[in-house]
């Protein structure tokens, strides 16, 4: 049992996973046809674990997270699969249960804090409102005290004055801190961070990442960190899911993904990024082609048209997941081939 920042003990379900997502499918029913934004993804997250979801724009990484929060916007709909939070079926929640669940058990922070904070209310009012929404019995004074504690926790000085200020009086980095304070004020067990540092400068990004790492250690909450920046993933995540065209093409522990990638898309991403600590000039190796048109996805593996190792079967059938190590799997026909080859070799030795 860990103590979190205000001394409340964190309850963890005995033996259970914090979050289990199974074969989740999300579609958008647009006039131009059905867009399968998320096409059957599965993963689980333990208490205190940080998972990164990496993908390009349009890969479905945000939509997947919105469906956990029940925040999918019309015409988006969960069309299949299950989301289980500490043994409870999230998709079966009533409107009221969902409202309780949101904020108190799962919180979300977004890329652009300015669009999430209300410009006509003071920061203090908004923090107090978040608290009171989940705990009707709390007095305004007690709520204000908690709000100030939270602001201090996320590294904002002069809190008494800051509580009375409006969002526009905060800088970008400070606003993101306010967002984090608001997200954490009800002690959620899961925090979904949707590109929380993308809009920030590198030095501010470094501050926010340090803050999130620190808070995560203190509170032992689970974090789903959605980003397209592999550097940020390497820094903060325990495990990673790589998404492409609505599917998880590879997932595994962070070291496996970076040092032993199994999917050509993951390999391509890693190869195409210049590194600030590179010792000499090396020409970048880009992934050729353009991202998938989700209205008209290719048959078979969605990455096949851009894959330099594409085989005939890749264009026809979706590859199954192949286990590559403890919790490390990739959906690629090449890995299926490796496996068959390996098996043949073994059979050859024994036979």
């Amino acid at each position: 049992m860990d103590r979190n920042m205000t001394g409340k003990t964190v309850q963890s379900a005995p033996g259970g996973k914090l979050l289990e997502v199974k074969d989740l499918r999300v579609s958008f029913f647009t006039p131009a046809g059905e867009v399968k934004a998320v096409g059957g993804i599965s993963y689980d997250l333990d208490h205190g674990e940080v998972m990164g979801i990496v993908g390009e724009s349009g890969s479905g990484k945000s939509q997947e997270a919105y469906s956990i929060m029940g925040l999918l916007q019309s015409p988006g709909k969960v069309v299949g699969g299950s989301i289980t939070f500490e043994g409870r079926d999230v998709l079966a929640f009533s409107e009221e249960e969902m409202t309780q669940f949101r904020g108190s058990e799962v919180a979300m922070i977004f890329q652009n804090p300015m669009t999430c904070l209300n410009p006509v209310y003071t920061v203090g009012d908004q923090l107090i409102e978040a608290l009171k929404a989940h705990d009707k019995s709390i007095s305004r004074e007690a709520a204000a005290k908690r709000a100030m504690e939270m602001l201090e926790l996320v590294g904002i000085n002069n809190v008494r004055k800051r509580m009375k200020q409006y969002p526009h009086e905060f800088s970008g980095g400070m606003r993101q801190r306010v967002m984090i304070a608001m997200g954490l004020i009800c002690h959620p067990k899961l925090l979904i961070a949707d590109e929380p540092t993308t809009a920030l400068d590198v030095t501010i990004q470094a501050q926010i990442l340090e803050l999130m790492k620190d808070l995560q250690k203190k509170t032992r909450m689970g974090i789903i960190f959605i980003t397209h920046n592999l550097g940020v993933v390497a820094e903060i995540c325990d495990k990673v899911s790589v998404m492409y065209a609505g599917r998880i093409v590879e997932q595994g522990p962070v070291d496996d993904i970076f040092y032993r990638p199994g999917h050509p898309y993951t390999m391509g991403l890693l190869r195409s990024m210049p590194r600030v600590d590179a010792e000499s000039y090396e020409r970048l190796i880009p992934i050729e082609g353009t991202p998938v048109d989700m209205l008209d996805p290719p048959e078979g593996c969605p990455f096949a048209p851009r894959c330099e190792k594409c085989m005939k079967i890749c264009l026809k059938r979706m590859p199954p997941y192949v286990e590559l190590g403890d919790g490390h799997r990739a959906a690629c026909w090449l890995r299926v081939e490796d496996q068959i080859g390996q098996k043949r070799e073994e059979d050859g030795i024994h036979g």
Partner: protein
Amino acid sequence: MAEDKILLEVKDLKKYFPVKGVKGPGVQAVEGVSLFIRKGETLGLVGESGCGKTTLGRTILRLHEPTSGKIVYDGTTIFEGEDPWQRDGDGHMTKRRVPKPKSVDMLPYRRKMQIIFQDPSASLDPRMTVGEIIGEALDIHKLYGSKAERADRIRELLAMVGLNTEHANRYPHEFSGGQQQRVGIARALAVKPEFIVCDEPISALDVSIQSQVVNMLEDMQEELGLTYLFIAHDLSVVRHISDRIGVMYLGSLVELAESYELNRHPLHPYTKTLLSAVPVPDPEVSRRRQRIVLEGDIPSPMDPPHGCRFHTRCPYATELCGREAPAFREVEPGHWAACHLLNK
């Protein structure tokens, strides 16, 4: 690649934007920048948002009229003006009368100096076809003899940036972000420029597309002998593409060096912080390395700190730093920096 010949030289360049209702110079976006770019070279410019790197790029092209300073392009002075703002001992600024700045007609220089913008969807006219966008540049500078020649040139440019020649009849919204940026590059190349300001040309693009565009810019440079001023906030990309890098903070250059030298031996505390803040896609390295985390935010360029502009956030600042601005000087051969700590 780079020759010894200096193509562009900037001396003590300043750009202030007056603010309504505020006395004094207003926003001091670029504050006394001096640099030179050799022919065929790529000079990278990094810094956080609001540090004036984009304004500097545009002021060099005179898309913003400079407040004062000197710009020399290929031996010709295209702007020279005296600073109307005088600073007294305590940093107070007063305006005085100065002679009208000397400048030249930019039209012939627009042909030689071009720019690629950050957001391709915002910099292409949605009501013009790609062919018209590229052709407009040819029209203005009268770069063709006949209609057929014009059409050929447009097709040639599209092929050069990796687009289909049929794309000439399409509108910008029909392209993806990466393709739009290719159109932006074709437009810049249409007039056969020598010098291109690349203003964050890849930050609006997806990760897998960024490297495609970076490689293309490198190929163009090789083929056409271009000189780049490459502006970006992503230090890893700038380090990759640049021969030399300048680091800006709050309108001024704090350090400038050959790009690998800057990475190995950063001299200025701000450069060190910036380098340590860039996330590295390598879990081992991120676990191992020590990070310098800066306190606070960038001060407002409307009221920059007196003395060294970085002293309010610098972990090593002394009393001298708050009093006097350090000179930007060549500390080691080819390695410039502005910091009092380096003068000991």
